[in-house]
């Protein structure tokens, strides 16, 4: 069993809909939780970062961490075709060390 589980999708939504993504994990030592966005033929870029449990909002993006359930989520409001990409959850024990990634969920936002 992988340390981080993420549904690979694809997830297809109409423009303007809310996109809901999630990951589960097994290592209770993880404290730093991130969401990366990866466009085709590009490297991942950091979208959201959360330390420990709680919610964080940045524009149209909201990240949630529930350490008691070992479950993290990313919500994208008012989705746009430009949000079409693969979204990778990632987590680590310390802030600068090894990131453990999920497999990534491919999101397609149709006009």
């Amino acid at each position, binding site marked *: 069993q992988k340390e981080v589980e993420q549904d690979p999708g694809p997830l297809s939504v109409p423009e303007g809909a809310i996109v809901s993504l999630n990951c589960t994990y097994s290592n209770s030592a993880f404290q730093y939780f991130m969401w990366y966005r990866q466009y085709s033929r*590009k490297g991942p870029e950091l979208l959201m970062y959360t330390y420990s449990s709680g919610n964080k909002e940045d524009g149209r993006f909201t990240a949630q961490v529930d350490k008691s359930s070992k479950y993290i989520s990313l919500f994208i409001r008012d989705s746009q075709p430009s949000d079409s990409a693969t979204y990778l959850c990632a987590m680590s024990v310390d802030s600068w060390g090894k990131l453990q990634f999920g497999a990534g969920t491919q999101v397609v936002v149709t006009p």
Partner: protein
Amino acid sequence: EAGVVQSPRYKIIEKKQPVAFWCNPISGHNTLYWYLQNLGQGPELLIRYENEEAVDDSQLPKDRFSAERLKGVDSTLKIQPAELGDSAVYLCASSKGQGSYEQYFGPGTRLTVT
């Protein structure tokens, strides 16, 4: 600010041949990472450098893979000999180091072994 630079972007080689990838991190970033990304999977760490020192190479297949980061700036990852299963994207990332959570990724080198 220039991003992480990787070259080449694409490489096609025959199995058993050697191959090398080069990475130039963001200026001032002390920590450098090499990740391997298979199709449909997330990146997996191969090696992490703090300046010139490899502080985490537990996932690096040392029988065929080697890496160096001379002078604590740019880095080279080598495979010799390459196998069919090495076909993947090799990503380099850098960060400011301890206490800095954001890793900046380069575009990657897509390796195809035939």
